[in-house]
């Protein structure tokens, strides 16, 4: 059992040594060793050696600084996934190169592929590397196909993991698009924001309107409720008031009835008795009045009669007196008349006597005019002197220089002036006597006196 080796599905047995040369014919003839895949084989210890060659998948990571076909330097990180191919030729090639050195295979393949990747990138643009995967695989095949076949490897996949961009080429490459996208994004965001805002505002407006309507309705309902409540609250007092009003009405009626009752009662109790009393009193009064009237009339009649009687008596008495007085007066008048006649006769006789005397004197004067004038002057002179002295009465203060002698002189002069006027007066009197003797007797004689005074 120890001599029988079995190849796992993912490995190949490479048997070399005695008898291993008799391998498959054809292209594999002369291989010099025996390749067993997927089955077991007897290995004779000491004469043969069996080694296992893994057909597992391998991975090599690459990090290469490259230049693209545009001359843009880029750092490329890539992964190559490869394996030893399954056909005998490939296994034989690989066995000759990597048997017992599988741990170094990755490093070796890495070095090989570094060069390949550099040449691959050199045939491509950055855009192709990013986008055109077919071209990448195409380029990979073109550059590495023959070498891979020589090494007995097959490339399952070449993946570029990362492209370093020290010059910012890729970044700039994407910038217009990025800017456009950003612009579109902003525009879209702005539009969306605007639409959202519009919608929000419309919604807010609708909400506000709804709130307003709700508030209005609430207020209305509340108003109605309050109104109803107020009505309800007022209903009690109102009912109370109404009831009280009814009570008052009834009380009023009661009062009215009581008033009527009282009135009727008063009518019955007071007025009727009062009327009766009044009637009684009136009747009594009327009776009394009538009685008094009758009495008064009787008295009047009595007085009248008495007065008439008195008048008659007085008249008779007056007539008697009048007759007596008339008679008395007549008697007195007769007496007086007689007396007057007697006196008149006496006076007449006296007057006649005087007239005769005057006539006699006038006659005498006419015979001796000078004597009359002197007599008149003597009568008038005191008046003249008095009038002259009146002039001194009008003087407030009279200063007499010669003392008593001066005073005497003054008076003497004054009297002398009065005396000096006598001849003139006498002339005037004479002229007046000549014109008519009668005026000399009456008071006109005083008229010439002031003239004489003024002339003085």
């Amino acid at each position, binding site marked *: 059992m120890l001599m029988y080796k079995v190849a796992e599905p993912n490995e190949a047995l490479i048997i070399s040594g005695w008898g291993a040369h008799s391998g498959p014919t054809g292209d594999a003839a002369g291989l010099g060793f025996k390749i067993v895949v997927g089955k077991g084989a007897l290995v004779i210890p000491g004469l043969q050696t069996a080694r296992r060659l893994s057909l597992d998948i391998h991975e090599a990571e690459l990090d290469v600084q490259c230049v693209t076909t545009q001359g843009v330097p880029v750092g490329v990180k890539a992964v190559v996934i490869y394996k030893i191919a*399954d*056909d005998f*030729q490939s296994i034989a090639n690989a066995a000759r190169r990597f048997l017992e050195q599988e741990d170094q295979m990755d490093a070796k393949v890495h070095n090989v592929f570094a060069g390949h990747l550099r040449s691959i990138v050199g045939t491509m643009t950055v855009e192709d590397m990013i986008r055109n995967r077919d071209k990448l695989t*195409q380029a990979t*095949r073109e550059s590495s196909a023959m070498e891979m*076949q020589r090494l007995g490897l*097959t490339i399952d996949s070449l993946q570029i993991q990362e492209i370093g961009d020290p010059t910012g080429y890729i970044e700039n490459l994407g910038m217009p698009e990025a800017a456009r996208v950003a612009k579109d994004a902003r525009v879209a965001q702005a539009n969306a924001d605007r639409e959202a805002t519009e919608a929000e505002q419309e919604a807010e407006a609708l909400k506000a309107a709804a709130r307003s309507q709700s508030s209005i309705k609430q207020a209305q309902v509340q108003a109605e409720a309050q109104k109803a409540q107020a009505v309800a609250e007022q209903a009690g007092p109102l009912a109370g008031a109404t009831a009280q009003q009814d009570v008052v009405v009834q009380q009023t009626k009661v009062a009215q009835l009581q008033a009527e009752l009282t009135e009727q009662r008063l009518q019955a109790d007071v007025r009727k008795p009062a009327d009766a009393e009044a009637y009684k009193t009136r009747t009594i009064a009327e009776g009394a009045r009538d009685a008094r009237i009758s009495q008064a009339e009787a008295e009047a009649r009595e007085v009248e009669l008495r007065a008439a009687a008195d008048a008659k008596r007085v008249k008779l008495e007056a007539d008697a007196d009048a007759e007596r007085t008339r008679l008395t007066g007549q008697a007195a008048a007769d007496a007086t008349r007689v007396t007057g006649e007697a006196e008149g006769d006496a006076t007449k006789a006296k007057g006649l006597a005087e007239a005769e005397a005057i006539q006699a004197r006038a006659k005498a004067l006419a015979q001796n005019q000078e004597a009359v004038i002197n007599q008149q002057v003597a009568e008038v002179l005191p008046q003249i002197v008095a009038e002259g002295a009146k002039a001194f009465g009008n003087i407030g203060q009279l200063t007499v220089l010669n003392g008593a002698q001066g005073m005497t002189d003054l008076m003497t002069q004054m009297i002398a002036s009065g005396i000096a006027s006598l001849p003139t007066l006498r002339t005037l009197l004479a002229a007046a006597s000549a014109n008519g003797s009668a005026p000399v007797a009456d008071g006109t004689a005083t008229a010439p006196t002031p003239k004489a005074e003024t002339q003085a």
Partner: protein
Amino acid sequence: MTDHELVGKVGRVTGRVAPGTVGEMMLPVRGGVEAFYAYPADGLETIEAGRRAVVVEYEPPRTVMITAYPG
């Protein structure tokens, strides 16, 4: 594994086959499917990826000459 096992097989081209480049096609072999480098058999033909092709010639270890398979 012999040459005739591949010649006449029909597979689908996975990498564009054209003159001056290396194409690829998938072929059923040994119970699996493996990728082979492909060249136009007449040196002129161009077979786009996705087309079916038939192996005309096999060059070990992993190269086949193909021509477009009608249909």
